[in-house]
Structures are given as C-alpha cells and as structure tokens.
C-alpha cells in the first residue's frame, strides 16, 4: 500500500460520502424539530430528475442545482402539509413520499434516459490541494462537495451556537412547552422539513449533475435510507454526521477499491459492511441509551397540534 492508494481511497470516500452528508444533515434538522421524514429517498430522486432536466433544458448546471433544491422543497411541503397540518402518521406519510417520489422521478425523467450533459468538474484549490494524503480528498473536489462542507459548517454553527438552534431543539424535545413559551411550533417544523427537502434535492443534484452526470431511474440506489440510518448512527449530532457520512461512504466503496488493488476479499462480504456497521452501532446505542438516557429528540415522530 503506497501513499497514492490512501490518497485515492480518501478522495473516493469524501465523494461517496457527500450525498449521504447532505441528506443526513437535512434529515437530522427535521428530526431535531421532532419530524421523522422517511421520504428522503423520494426527495433525492425528484431532486436528481428535476436537476438533470433543468440542467439539460437550460444548459446550465446552476439552473439544475436550483431546480433540484426547489423541487426537493416542493415535495417536502407536500409531506409537511399531510403530516403536520393534517396530522397524519409521519412514518406512513414518509414511506408514501418515497414511493411517490420514485414514481414521479421516473415519470419526469423518462424522456431523459440516455441524454448527456457536462457535469461539474473538479476544482483544485491552490496550495491546499497539494497537501499530501488529504489534499486531494478535501481540496480537489467539485463545487457541490465544497458547498456540502459549507452547509455542514452552517448547520453545525446554527445547532450549537444560535438561538434558532435552541428553538429547533426545544420544538423537537417538547413542543407543548415550546408553544407555551410562544414559539411557533408549526412554523419551525415546516421550516425544518423544507430544509430537509432542500438538502435531499441538493443531494439528488449531486448525483445527477456531478457524481454521474446522467439521469437513470432509481439513481439514488438506497442512499436516502442509508442517510436515515446515519442520523441515528450520529445520535443527532452534526459533527458525528460528517464522520458517519465518510465512514459509510468508505464502507460502501471499500470493496470496489480493494478488488481493483487485487486484494482477495469476498466483495459480497464487504458490500455488507455499511449495513453491518449500522446494526452494530444501533446495538451499542440502545445499550448506552438504556443506561444514559435518550439520544433521540423526545417528540420525534409524534403528531402535534396547537391546543385550542
């Protein structure tokens, strides 16, 4: 194993982890506000399809990203209306959103299968990109990866240091108290769900405009579900989401890289790795949770309406 191999593994890890990071940040935000949205996969797919279509039609990647984000927000609003305003079961609504998004994206994208666009290119940041080992992974990626880093930093700051972060957490822990204190629970939850939609849409744009610049049905390939597991894995902490996204990204491509380097490890075994990691972490977390209290926002997934 030489340094070049490590550089390449780290580079691929960050790239693979980026869609997971984006989705998980958004999902965490809405879960922190008490809303469990299992529709991530559907929102990614709608974002990926709309992003690709807009980029293709407008021949501009910027329009593509914008369209992906907006379409993500629009479908998340559908979820918010049904789950929050109509107070339906969040789990069922989220699952419905995934199924709906899968179908809608396939329908919208049907005419675009096989079309090509020029996707985002990597942009090397001078000096930083030359740092051995990590330079390539962190500073020689495409613009959307850098945007993901920036959004990670923003979410981190908001959740840890700002009043808004406190309000979001209060709404997720105990909406009745937050309401009694005069905070607009509904508005906060709507906002958090919409942020989640925007992030999932952006992750879709990353897939169809940067990672593999094409539209093909089911391009998300289960990443929405992995991101949901990742939020639990990270126990709803922003910084752990970043590490988790990289770890999951690493686990999901390790077998491809090792095969390429000629290591004779069963690819089937390695392909299981992300899921094994999830199960192990869940077991550990439940164990800790029993001893040290809950990690999940207390009102997560519970319907709430303002007292009349």
């Amino acid at each position: 194993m030489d340094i070049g191999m490590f550089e390449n593994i780290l580079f691929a890890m960050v790239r693979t982890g980026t869609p997971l990071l984006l989705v998980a940040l958004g999902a965490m935000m809405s879960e922190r506000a008490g809303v469990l949205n299992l529709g991530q996969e559907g929102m990614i797919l709608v974002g990926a399809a709309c992003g690709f279509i807009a980029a293709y039609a407008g021949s501009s990647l910027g329009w593509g990203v914008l369209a992906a984000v907006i379409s993500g927000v629009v479908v998340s609003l559908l979820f918010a209306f049904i789950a929050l305003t109509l107070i339906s079961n969040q789990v069922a609504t989220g699952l419905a959103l995934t199924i709906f998004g899968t179908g809608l994206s396939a329908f919208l994208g049907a005419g675009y299968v096989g079309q090509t666009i020029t996707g985002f290119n990597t942009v090397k940041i001078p000096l930083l990109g030359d740092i051995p080992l990590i330079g390539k992974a962190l500073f020689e990626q495409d613009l959307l990866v850098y945007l993901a880093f920036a959004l990670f930093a923003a979410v981190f700051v908001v959740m840890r240091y700002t009043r808004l972060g406190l309000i979001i957490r209060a709404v997720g822990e105990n909406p009745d108290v937050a309401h009694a204190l005069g905070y607009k629970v509904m508005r906060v939850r709507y906002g958090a769900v919409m942020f989640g939609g925007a992030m999932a849409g952006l992750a879709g744009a990353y897939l169809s405009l940067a990672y593999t610049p094409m539209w093909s049905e089911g391009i998300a390939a289960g990443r929405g579900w992995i991101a949901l597991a990742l939020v639990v894995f990270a126990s709803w902490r922003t910084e752990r989401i970043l590490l988790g996204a990289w770890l999951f990204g690493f686990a999901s491509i390790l077998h491809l890289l090792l095969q390429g380097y000629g290591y004779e490890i069963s690819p089937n075994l390695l392909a299981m790795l992300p899921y094994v990691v999830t199960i192990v972490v869940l077991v550990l977390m439940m164990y800790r949770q029993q001893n040290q209290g809950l990690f999940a926002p207390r009102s997560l997934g519970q319907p709430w309406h303002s007292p009349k």
Partner: protein
Amino acid sequence: MTLLTRKKFLRVLGATAALLTLSANVFAAPLKVGFVYVSPIGDAGWTYQHDEARKIVQQEFGDKIETTFVESVAEGADAERVIRNMASRGYDLIFTTSFGYMNPTIKVGKMFPKVKFEHATGYKTAANVGNYQARDYEGRFLAGMIAGAMSKKNVIGYVGAFPIPEVIRGINSFMLGAQVMNPDIKMKVVWVNTWHDPAKEREAAESLILQGADVITMHTDSAATIQAAEAKGVYSVGFNSDMSAYGPKTHLTSSTQHWESIYRAKIQAVLDGTWKPEAIWHGLREGVVALSPMNPLVPKEVVEKMEAYKMEIVAGSRAVYQGPIYDQAGALKVAEGKTLSDEELHQQNWYVKGIEGKIPQ
C-alpha cells in the same frame, strides 16, 4: 310503446352484431402483439433496443399487426399482473423481455393456452411459451479484439454486476478477443454487486483506471463506466446500445443487440399459423448481435482484422471458444480443434488465462 322501442332496439343491435361478426371474418383483425419492458425506453440500453425492433416490425407489417408495450414493469408480482392483463385483453403474441419475467410468463402461459408467449434470456419453454436470446458473447469477443489492440498498458478493466455465468461468459469472451490482438494483455475485474448504481459503477471504473487499466468495459446497466473513462481520458467499450454519446472522445465501440429479425420471424410464424415453442440463441450470423460504429481512432487494419474474424464466425468456420483455451491455473478447458457446446457456454464458472483475481464464490 316502450316495449316496441326496446324490440326495435334489440333488432338493430342484433343486426349490428351480425354485421360486425361478418366483417371481422372478411377483414381479419390485426394480430395484437404486446411487449413488456423492464425499464423505461429512454435513448439507449437494453429496453431501447427492444423497442427499436418493435418499431421496425410494426412498420414492416403495417396494418397486419398492432403492437403495444408496457415499460418499467418491475420483475416479480407486477410483471405477472401486466402479462396476465395483456393476455386477457386479447393479445395474440406477447414478448416479455427480461430474465425475471420467466416464471410469471410460464405461469400466465398456463392460464391462457391460446395466447403465444416469447420470453427473452431465460431457459424455460412450454407448450405456448418460446424463448429467445442473443449471443452477446460474440459481440464481446469482437469488441475485445478492438480493446486489446488499443490498450497501450496491456491492462483491460471490466466492471461486472454479479459473478453469474452470463457475466463471466462476457468477461472470458472479451479477454479471448483481446488476446487475439495482444497476447500480453491482462484483465482486472471489479464486481459491484448491483445491476444499477451509477455512483458505484463509476467508483469501480475509476479504481480500475487507477490500477493501470487503459480500456474499460462493463456488464452493468448504466453508462457511468463510459463516463468515468471519458473523464479520465482512457478508452471504453459499451454494451447493449451505442454509448458513444457518453464518451464522445474515448468510446471505441459497443456490442449491441438488434432483435428485429427474431420479432419478424415470430410474428410471421403466428400469422402463418406455423408458430411453435422453441429456444433460439441468435448472434452475429442472424444480425441479432453487432458492433456499433467504430471510433475513428481505431486503426484501419485493426477494424479489418476484426471484420475478418466476424466473417469467419458468421460463416461458422470460427467459434469464440475454439481450443486450445486454458483457464487461470493453466488447465486445458477447450482442447485443440474443439469448441464449447451451448450447454457448456451457459454454465461457465471459470476465467480464461490472463484474467487476474478469482471469481467470488
């Protein structure tokens, strides 16, 4: 008064029905032919090739047939529902074009003994169910010749979906073709364990490129491999349909399928009343398998040699698996002067010499 009207009405109705029956006998209704596709048609790929063939036969037969298709039908319970629905709506001949439709097709076939079914890529037939396949490996062999000639580092990279005989056959055939042009050629294979995850396909392709492969090909569904090769400036070879749009500079050629000759023959047989269930496996000779237009970067003499081999395969004087062929361990798998039978081709679970790594068990 009402009674009279009803009587009149019934009489008119009866007359119309009689007239309709009569006219149906005089002007034969078009043969209804249905197609079930596993994915959207799009602009390239497996399903696209089937639909191109459907359009060709529809045009050729004109008003003698009426074709319809249902796209994006998931394998499994959905497939059975769609096929049954088609059969119950009076379709005479139904083509089901994905491996996973095999059991649903057989099952629905039993329920509708008068309807004829043709299933692609499986291995089961029944009284009213036929089976058809393309000898893709012949196209892989010719494409492998091009790849072997174009590789400068003598390493080919192959992205495989699952280590099943169909994929392994493609890998071996590609390698045998490459060895014709370049005896020193090596091949690395990376398995992605999915038919469709563009991001993983790209990672697999890039890991092969990092390992020195300078011609990349794949047996997965998306064109992510071709894109990855274009981005890294190495050559690629596509599959199913012409994938040059994904790699305008570096795509060399694609091994493609053209189903119209099979569809034409089967439809004609049903029209003539001579249809019978059979398992057919057509390739270069019947025009079911072909190579897409060649990248101009491929030297003329390479194309000529490939064409010469193609002619020999078409004429039957050459087979892709023509001995002597050795496996990785050097054991003789096909003796001098022998070829592999179709059954042996279907059961391949070994790599030819020169391929690196082991087949995952």
